[in-house]
C-alpha cells in the first residue's frame, strides 16, 4: 500500500498547490480565465495624470469596475481611458467621470456621478462629461504666485 500512499500524498500536494495558484491568479491577480462579464466604456480626459490601469471606478462610493487601459488620442491630444463596468451598472449619457485621489497621497481612481438623461450608455460608448486629475502641485503654485501679485 506504500505506492497508494505516495499517490495520495502527491495528489493532495498538487491539489493544494493548484488551489493556491488559482487563488493568487484569480482572486488577487484579476486573471479571468472565463472572460469578464463586465462591459467596456471609454472616457476622454484632458489629462489623466497619475491614473493607472487597474485603478477602480466608483459610483456613489461603491466599486463597480476598473480602468483597463489608458492611451493618447494623437489627434486631439486627449487621454482615452478604457473602463470596464459591472453589467448591472447602467450609466446615463450625461454621467460625469472625474479623476479623484484616495486621501491626499493615495492612488487615483475614477468617480462617476450619475446624470439625469434618459439615454443610457451602451457598451463601447464614450463618456464626454469628464473632470481631469486635480494636481496638488498646480493648485499650490497657483496659490503662491497669485498671492505674490
Amino acid at each position, binding site marked *: 500500500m506504500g505506492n497508494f500512499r*505516495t*499517490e495520495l*500524498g*502527491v495528489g*493532495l*500536494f*498538487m491539489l*493544494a*498547490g*493548484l488551489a*493556491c*495558484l488559482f*487563488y*493568487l*491568479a484569480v*482572486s*488577487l*491577480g*484579476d*486573471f479571468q480565465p472565463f472572460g469578464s462579464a463586465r462591459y467596456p466604456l471609454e472616457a476622454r480626459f484632458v489629462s489623466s495624470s497619475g491614473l493607472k490601469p*487597474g485603478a*477602480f471606478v466608483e459610483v456613489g462610493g461603491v466599486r463597480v469596475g476598473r480602468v483597463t487601459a489608458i492611451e493618447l488620442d494623437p489627434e486631439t491630444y486627449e487621454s482615452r481611458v478604457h473602463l470596464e463596468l459591472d453589467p448591472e451598472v447602467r450609466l446615463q449619457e450625461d454621467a460625469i467621470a472625474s479623476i479623484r485621489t484616495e486621501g491626499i497621497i493615495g*492612488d487615483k481612481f475614477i468617480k462617476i456621478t450619475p446624470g439625469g438623461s434618459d439615454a443610457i450608455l451602451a457598451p463601447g460608448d464614450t463618456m464626454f462629461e469628464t473632470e481631469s486629475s486635480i494636481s496638488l502641485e498646480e493648485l499650490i503654485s497657483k496659490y503662491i504666485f497669485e498671492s505674490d501679485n
Partner: protein
Amino acid sequence: MSDGGLRGGPLSTPVAGLGRFGLYLALLAPHLLRPWRQPGAVLRQLHFIGARSVTVIAVAGGFVGMVVALQFHDTLVRFGAVGMLGAAVVLSLIRELAPVLTALIVIGRVGSAMCAEMGIMRSDNQVDALECMAIDPYGYLLAPRFIATLIAVPLLTALFNVVGIGGGWFVGVVMFDISGGAYFSAMADSVLGRDVAMDVVKSLVFALVIVWICTGKGFLMHLAARPAFGAEGVSRTTTEAVVAASITVLFADYIISALML
C-alpha cells in the same frame, strides 16, 4: 564512462565547466519533451520534492508572512497608513520573498539530497552499470527529477504565498486589530496579473536552476577540474552544489526583477 560523451578532467577550465553544464542540459532536453515516459518515477520524485516539503514550506511561509506584517506595521503606523498593510505584505511575498525563500528551502532540503544521490551513484559506478544494461541515465535518472522539480517548485511557491498571506493576516488583523476587509481589499487592489506572472516565472526559473546545478554537479562529479571520488568527493561536491545553486538563484532573481518590473 557513461556521461553522454562529455569530457573533463584535470585540464578543465571554468569556461569548459560552464560549457559542460550547457551540454548536460542539451543532452537532457529531448527527454524532458516526453514527460509521460516514466510516470512512476516522476510520481516518486514529486512525493519527495513536493509533498514532503509542504510542512517546512508552510511553517516558513507562515512565519515570514508574520514577520513581514510585524515590520511593515511598525513602519506604516507612523504614517497612519496601516490600511496599506495587506498590500505591503502581499507584494513583498509574491514578488520576492516567496519565490526566493522557497527556492532556498528546496535547495537545502531536496537539492543537496539529489546531488549526493547522483554523486554516490557516480562514485559507485552505478551510472556505468545502467549504461551496460542499455538504459540511458539521462532519461532514466535525471529526466524524472527535472520534471518533478519543475512541477513542484511553482506549486510550493504558491503555497508559501498563501500561507504567508495568512500569517500576515494573523499579525495584522488578529494581533493589531486592523480591519480584515481593509487587509484583503488593499491586497486585491495592489496585486496585478503581472505580479502573479512574475511569481510563476521566477519559481519556474529557480526550479530549473536548482535541479540543473544540483543534479549536474553530482552526475558530472568525476569530470570536474578537481575530480571528486568517494565519500570526500561527494561531500565536497554537495557543498559546492548548494552554494552555487543558492548564489545562482539570487542572481537570477535580480535579473528577472530588473527585466519584469
